[in-house]
C-alpha cells in the first residue's frame, strides 16, 4: 500500500467530514482498490477554449462502454479491465449502439442511450448551430480497470492522439459513467 492510500484510509480523512451521501465510501474504495485512486498531484489543468462553442468541433469521450452493435464487444469479463477503446461514429443513433459494461446499473440507458452517451443530443446541438460541429467519431471505453498506469499508456494516450491527430477536435466533452 502506498503512503497516499494509508492516509486516505484513516478515519480522519478530510473527505469524510461534512455531509456524505455514502459515508465510508472513500475508505471502502481505498481498502478495495489501493493505488487506483487519482491523487491531487495528478491534476492536469484543462485547456481554455480557443474559439466559442458555436465555432468549435466537439468530440465526446465516455467511460460508459457504449459501442456499435456490429463491433467486436469490449471485454467485460477481464478481471483487470479491457485496455482498448472504441470509436463510435458521431452520427450514430440509439438503435445502432449497445452497452458493454457490468459495473453500473443501465436500465435507463438501455431505454435511452443518451443518458450516459448523449450522442443524439450533441447531434441536435450541432444541427442547431450551438456547436461548430462534431468530430467524425466519438470515443468510448470500459471505465473499470485495475491498472491506472497501463490505462494511461494505452487507452488515454490512444484516445488523446486520435482526438488531436485524426479527429481534429477543438474541444471534448468528457462523460464518466
Amino acid at each position, binding site marked *: 500500500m502506498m503512503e497516499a492510500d494509508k492516509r486516505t484510509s484513516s478515519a480522519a480523512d478530510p473527505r469524510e467530514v461534512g455531509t456524505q451521501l455514502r459515508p465510508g465510501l472513500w475508505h471502502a474504495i481505498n481498502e478495495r482498490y489501493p493505488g487506483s485512486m487519482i491523487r491531487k498531484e495528478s491534476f492536469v489543468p484543462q485547456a481554455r477554449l480557443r474559439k466559442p462553442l458555436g465555432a468549435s468541433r466537439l468530440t465526446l469521450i465516455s467511460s460508459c462502454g457504449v459501442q456499435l452493435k456490429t463491433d467486436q464487444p469490449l471485454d467485460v469479463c477481464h478481471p483487470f479491465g479491457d485496455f482498448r477503446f472504441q470509436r463510435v461514429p458521431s452520427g450514430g443513433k440509439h438503435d445502432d449502439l449497445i452497452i458493454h459494461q457490468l459495473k453500473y*446499473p443501465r436500465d435507463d440507458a438501455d431505454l435511452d442511450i443518451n443518458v450516459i452517451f448523449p450522442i443524439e443530443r450533441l447531434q441536435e446541438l450541432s444541427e442547431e448551430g450551438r456547436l461548430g460541429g462534431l468530430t467524425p467519431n466519438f470515443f468510448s471505453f470500459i471505465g473499470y480497470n485495475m491498472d491506472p498506469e497501463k490505462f494511461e499508456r494505452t487507452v488515454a494516450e490512444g484516445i488523446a492522439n486520435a482526438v488531436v491527430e485524426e479527429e481534429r477536435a477543438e474541444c471534448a466533452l468528457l462523460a464518466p459513467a
Partner: protein
Amino acid sequence: MSVPYLREAAAQDDLGKLVRFVRLHLGDGNEAVGKEEIDRSWAEAIKTLLRDAPVDREFIARVLETNESTLALLFFHLHFCFIRGSGRWIHDGSR
C-alpha cells in the same frame, strides 16, 4: 485492488489477497456475494454435465493447446457464461 497490489500479492504467493480480489470482482464489490457466485458457477457446470449431452473433446483439446493467458481469461468468461445461463445474473445492469 490495483494490479501492482496484486503483483505484490502474487510474488508473495498471498492466496488470501488474490482470492479476495477475485471474489470482489465476481461479486460486484461484495466478497460474500462473489464467493456465492463462484460456487454457483461450479454448480451450474455440474448441472449442465448431468444432462449427459454430447461433448466436443477435440475442441477442448485444441483450446487447451493455446497460451496460458488466453486460458486464464477464458476461465473468467466461462464463469460469467455459466452464471448468466443460470438465470440469476447480478451483473445484468438492473438496480
